[in-house]
């Protein structure tokens, strides 16, 4: 039978969670409420004596100093509404799992006693609420209907003596394990129907290829030998759908595109990935020659570069957009712990040393009606933030920086970019660590979590728009502690050389992890019956493609298997042999003795023909903005500082541990009061050396409204200049490209597909041009191509978004520079030229315009500036350096001043510029490749000499001293014509900057 243990705070003690929920009910739902109290509920599904339950309740489950408990009774009284929220059957319940383990330790393991613990939480609300409000609180704030169930009980229906009856969310419906066979020898309509009904996301053409494969007499002959017929099994169909999904195969990036530039020129691009991305990296590496520090690019789960002679760095950024739209907390948590496994499963396995996260949301103060199935942006914001907090903090990986981007078009799908870096010894036991090897005969071993129905169809689901039938099983909840235990164990196993190869289980689960690694040996023989399950009743195809979290797949030499399994058992990590790698050329999957999938490796991986696509570019003309300059420039600057894309993100940053592992050098918040916005993060991954890593991001989706070529150029420039501002050098800087697009394939659903594809082509052309110009090679990347929402007649597409992330080496972290003004009397410089290119700027957006001319990057000049600045920083000549991005020079000056707690006197007439005759344009133009730097007068001469270059008095780029830092804490500006433009206290400027997201 099931028992309930309820735990609550003693009278008079603050219930911090209750207080937080109360605040959220007020702020998010605008329902006034008097009080919220919480009660934690453990439902124990098993037979226990009263005495045992008391031991458990008084021991691990409650804290006697502040809490009390009741067993099989109720704590709740003095409320108006009670809402209890628990998980639906099969949803990962991390707390329940921990409680079960604690009970086993406390009471001892009995061989004939199996039990489970399920958690739920009661919210006791006080206030004058009707049922409608209570239901709204439950549905719109406390519970996510997709993964949770809730009950709403009014006071008058409550009997404290009886309390709530125990409810066990058991997974039921354990019908017979079966393998279905599907006849693909059917007409076109029926083929399409099969793909749609099973969420396969395969096109008719792809379905026809499968049909034709099975028609091949040789294929039929080999299938007969393993007991399969001419019909495809569900396991084979699902596995092919995963492997051939847009998510795994990047069909658009690998397709053949005929691109029409709209000006009479047409060209054929054979794979954007090969030509623009891999192609540029190859050129850059060739140019570096013997100095090439790239070790592994585009072939593994993450890119690998050299850190120093003895260590290599690994970096990867992923997105988890679709799941985060449905379940922001679970989706984002899975996003971060999922991307953690990429560097961890790269080469021979890397220790994880940092996270960097970028989120794109609709404005949290969104007031319009929400389309069906869409959660309010504020809820998505809080849920994603919290999911990444739990995933990152609990894994012990510092979140060293990131950013938030806001645009209404992220309402349909938020973008949740999670990046993780790792470090590994360059060699282990004499072998290089950045490569992978598997020999026939090696055992297939899975470690970590168990397999459930969670995350089925994750890969195919994210290869489609969010629609009415998007499957709920696609959502998973990660468990960072299970993963931490596994990574602790695997790092030990790695250093002992106990495995041959490691990879992660992400999209597509075992079908991808084993399917992909089996290419190294030439085949596999996998027995799904051996796989440990969370609960019985999974069919073989579900085991094969489930994306249940916290799992790695390894190849292990049979002579080392005992040592490996022994260490796993000792460290309390589950590890199971699931078969072996072969050289049979076949992807062979069994369930016991029965074959459930038998596919040629070559067909599985190379059977998909290239997609053929058309792209047509046509620049869009918008009305040219007409509005007068602001009467009060100080007010205008404050308005700019308060904008969502510019304002302080401190409330989010502080909730992420950015210092764990002890190597923090430049934190996300810097300056006199530890609250200024730093440009890039610097960490020391090895505590006994001053060599460090610089990490930065660039993202500017607004410019896509004008031209994605410049959007991409600006994103690349932003990431690089952030890194340069902090002390990185172009000599040792690598990039990651992460494209999030709206569906660019022309179809009935997407009538403007050719234009969107042209946008993609143009962004890639910029990627090619600018990575080569800067000599910053991409080492890995990712794309997510279906970020659309389409339900009923509403379609929302995200603006095309490229996140460009860079990782670089800084030879000595003590040379790093932060953005805050340091001393009164220092000279303020602007480096780089300001131009009249206001299009898609925050200033135009504030005034209700987009315009037509967005910033363009002059990489040739910028590169010279960056090289000179790197030199000046390395010589210790620069007191502060801050990049100019959203909000331009005005915002950068204000931030530099108030972060340093100092004032500034600036003469805008001295700013190097071209074509600007308005102070507002000069202040808020977002021209790229610019910095605000401050320099002590003692260093002025040397600094200017370095910037001018050695051989000439003419600088290869524009720069000028425009004022000085003052002890008086005002930002004072003189305008272009010499009159006083504004004088604002830095405290007020900072307050404007801080207020927007200070919830």
């Amino acid at each position, binding site marked *: 039978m099931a028992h309930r243990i309820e735990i609550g705070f003693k009278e008079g003690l603050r219930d911090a969670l209750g207080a937080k929920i109360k605040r959220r009910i007020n702020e998010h739902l605008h329902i006034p409420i008097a009080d919220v109290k919480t009660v934690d509920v453990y439902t124990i599904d098993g037979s226990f004596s009263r005495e045992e339950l008391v031991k458990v309740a008084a*021991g691990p489950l409650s804290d006697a100093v502040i809490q009390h408990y009741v067993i099989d009774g109720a704590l709740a009284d003095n409320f108006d509404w009670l809402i209890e929220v628990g998980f639906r059957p099969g949803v990962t319940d991390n707390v329940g799992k921990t409680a079960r383990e604690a009970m086993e330790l406390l009471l001892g393991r009995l061989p004939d006693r199996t039990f489970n613990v399920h958690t739920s939480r009661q919210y006791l609300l006080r206030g004058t609420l009707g049922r409608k409000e209570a239901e709204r609180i439950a549905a719109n704030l406390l519970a996510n209907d997709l993964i949770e169930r809730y009950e709403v009980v009014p006071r008058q229906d409550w009997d404290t003596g009886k309390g709530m009856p125990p409810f066990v969310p058991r997974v039921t419906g354990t019908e017979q394990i079966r393998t279905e066979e599907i006849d693909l020898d059917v007409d076109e309509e029926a083929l399409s129907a099969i793909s749609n009904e099973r969420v396969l996301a395969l096109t008719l053409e792809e379905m026809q290829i499968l049909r034709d494969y099975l028609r091949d007499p040789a294929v039929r002959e080999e299938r007969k030998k393993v007991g399969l017929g001419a019909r495809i099994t569900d396991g084979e169909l699902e596995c092919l759908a995963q492997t051939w999904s847009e998510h795994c195969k990047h069909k658009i990036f690998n397709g053949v595109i005929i691109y029409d530039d709209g000006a009479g020129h047409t060209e054929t691009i054979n794979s954007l990935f090969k030509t623009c991305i891999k192609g540029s990296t190859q050129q850059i590496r060739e140019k570096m020659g013997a100095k090439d520090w790239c070790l592994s690019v585009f072939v593994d789960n993450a890119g690998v570069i050299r850190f120093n002679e003895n260590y290599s760095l690994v970096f990867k950024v992923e997105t988890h957009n679709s799941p985060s739209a449905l379940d922001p907390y679970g989706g984002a948590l899975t996003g971060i712990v999922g991307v953690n496994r990429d560097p961890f499963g790269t080469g021979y396995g890397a220790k994880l040393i940092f996270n960097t996260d970028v989120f794109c949301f609709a404005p949290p103060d969104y007031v319009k009606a929400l389309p069906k199935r869409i959660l309010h942006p504020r809820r998505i914001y809080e849920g994603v933030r919290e999911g990444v907090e739990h995933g990152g903090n609990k894994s012990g990986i510092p979140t060293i920086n990131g950013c938030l981007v806001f645009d209404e078009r992220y309402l349909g799908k938020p973008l949740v970019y999670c990046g993780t870096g790792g470090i590994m010894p360059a060699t282990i036991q004499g072998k290089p660590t950045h490569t992978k090897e598997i020999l026939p005969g090696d055992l297939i071993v899975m470690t970590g979590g168990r397999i459930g129905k969670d995350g089925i169809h994750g890969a195919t689901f994210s290869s489609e728009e969010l629609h009415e039938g998007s499957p709920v099983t696609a959502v998973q909840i990660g468990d960072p502690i299970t993963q931490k235990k596994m990574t602790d164990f695997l790092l030990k196993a790695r250093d002992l050389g106990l495995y041959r190869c490691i990879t992660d289980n992400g999209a597509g689960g075992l079908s991808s992890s084993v399917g992909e690694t089996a290419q190294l040996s030439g085949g596999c023989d996998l027995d799904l019956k051996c796989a440990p399950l969370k609960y019985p009743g999974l069919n073989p195809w579900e085991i094969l493609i489930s994306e249940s979290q916290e799992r790695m797949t390894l190849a292990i030499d049979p002579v080392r298997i005992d040592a490996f399994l022994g260490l796993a058992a000792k460290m309390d990590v589950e590890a199971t042999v699931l078969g072996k790698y072969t050289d049979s050329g076949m992807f062979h999957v069994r369930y016991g003795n029965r074959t459930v999938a038998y596919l040629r490796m070559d067909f599985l991986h190379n059977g998909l023909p290239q997609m053929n696509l058309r792209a047509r570019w046509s620049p869009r003309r918008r009305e040219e903005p007409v509005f007068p300059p602001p009467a009060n420039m100080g007010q205008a600057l404050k308005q700019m500082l308060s904008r969502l894309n510019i304002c302080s993100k401190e409330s989010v940053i502080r909730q992420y541990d950015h210092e764990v592992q002890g190597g923090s050098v430049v934190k996300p918040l810097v300056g006199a009061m530890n609250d200024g916005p730093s440009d890039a993060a610097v960490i020391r991954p090895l505590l006994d050396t001053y060599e460090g890593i610089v990490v930065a991001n660039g993202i500017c989706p607004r410019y896509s409204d004008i031209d994605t070529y410049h959007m991409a150029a600006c994103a690349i420039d932003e990431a690089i200049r952030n890194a340069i501002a902090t002390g990185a050098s172009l000599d040792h800087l690598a990039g990651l490209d992460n494209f999030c697009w709206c569906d660019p394939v022309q179809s009935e659903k997407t009538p403007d597909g050719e234009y969107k594809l042209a946008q993609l082509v143009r962004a890639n052309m910029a990627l090619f041009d600018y990575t080569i110009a800067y000599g910053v090679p991409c080492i890995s990347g990712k794309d997510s191509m279906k970020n659309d929402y389409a339900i009923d007649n509403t379609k929302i597409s995200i603006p095309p978004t490229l996140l460009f992330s860079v990782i670089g080496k800084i030879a000595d972290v003590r040379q790093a520079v932060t953005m805050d003004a340091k001393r009164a009397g220092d000279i303020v410089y602007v480096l780089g030229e300001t131009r009249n290119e206001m299009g898609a700027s925050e200033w135009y957006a504030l005034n209700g315009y987009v315009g037509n001319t967005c910033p363009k990057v002059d990489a040739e000049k910028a590169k010279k500036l960056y090289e000179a600045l790197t030199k000046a920083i390395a010589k210790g000549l620069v007191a502060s350096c801050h990049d100019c991005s959203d909000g331009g020079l005005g915002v950068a000056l204000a931030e530099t001043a108030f972060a340093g707690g100092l004032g500034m006197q600036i003469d805008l007439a001295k700013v190097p510029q071209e074509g600007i005759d308005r102070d507002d344009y000069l202040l808020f133009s977002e021209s790229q490749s610019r910095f605000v730097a401050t320099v002590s007068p003692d260093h002025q001469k040397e600094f200017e000499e370095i910037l001018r270059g050695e051989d000439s008095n003419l600088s290869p780029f524009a720069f000028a001293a425009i004022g000085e830092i003052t002890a008086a804490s005002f930002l004072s500006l003189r305008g272009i014509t010499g009159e006083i433009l504004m004088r604002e206290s830095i405290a007020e400027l900072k307050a404007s900057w801080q207020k927007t997201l200070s919830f």
Partner: protein
Amino acid sequence: MTKANINKIVKSIVITGNGTNCEMEMAHACRLAGSDVVDIVHISELLHGEKRLDDYHFLNLPGGFLDGDDLGSAKAGANRILHATIRGTDEKLYDQMTRFIRDGKLILGVCNGFQLLVKLGLLPGFNGDYLTQTVTLSFNDSGRFEDRWVHLAVNPESPCIYTRGMKDIYLPVRHGEGKFIVRDPSVLARLHKEHRIVVQYSGADDGTPTMTYPANPNGAIDAIAGICNDTGRIFGLMPHPEAYLHRTNHPRWTREDLPEMGMGLIVFQNAVDFIRRQVI
């Protein structure tokens, strides 16, 4: 090894596993502080009897999220230490800990390690009772996890070995459950009377304890950030001394003149020096 051979060799152990995550920098701190042997030991090695606490002088319990803090911070972790048996024996890990204390050795718990000490009942450990929990660390008043640097005022009258010679310390807190709470007023009175309150959250300038957020980041009563046992050899605190070992860890190192060595390192140096002088 004979007694003579181990003479003056300071041995430190840093326990990890099940969600602990500050073991690397804590071990680094011990090394920088001069500990001759520093072992990061996974708890499974202790539970399998491969390593024993008895072989060390300085036990470090680092920060992290033991078992995800799923049942309340360090609750499941404390349950393991109390009830898991060391393989092939009847001994619990807790037994080794109490023996370690009896032998006059040093224990430092930081953040999750402090939560663990408190929930085991090892701190404050009145009257030699190391099993009854009298204080706790609960959810921050803000209801959120926070990473921010705080000023700590050091109690000069405290018997704490680790803070000798220090007046104040500047360190980061990184926790969601750091609010110090006592079972009843008598516990608090006794903590004060016996000078067991080692460090208190204080304002930046005046060094007086504060209840004002964010200087007091969690609402801890009487601004308590760390306490010790009667001998001053067991010390637990929420802020992270191992996070400030070098000046570049300081949030304002690019704008202030700071000594090369971080303030947090002094805590470890005091411990190692004391062991060399008085424990071995």
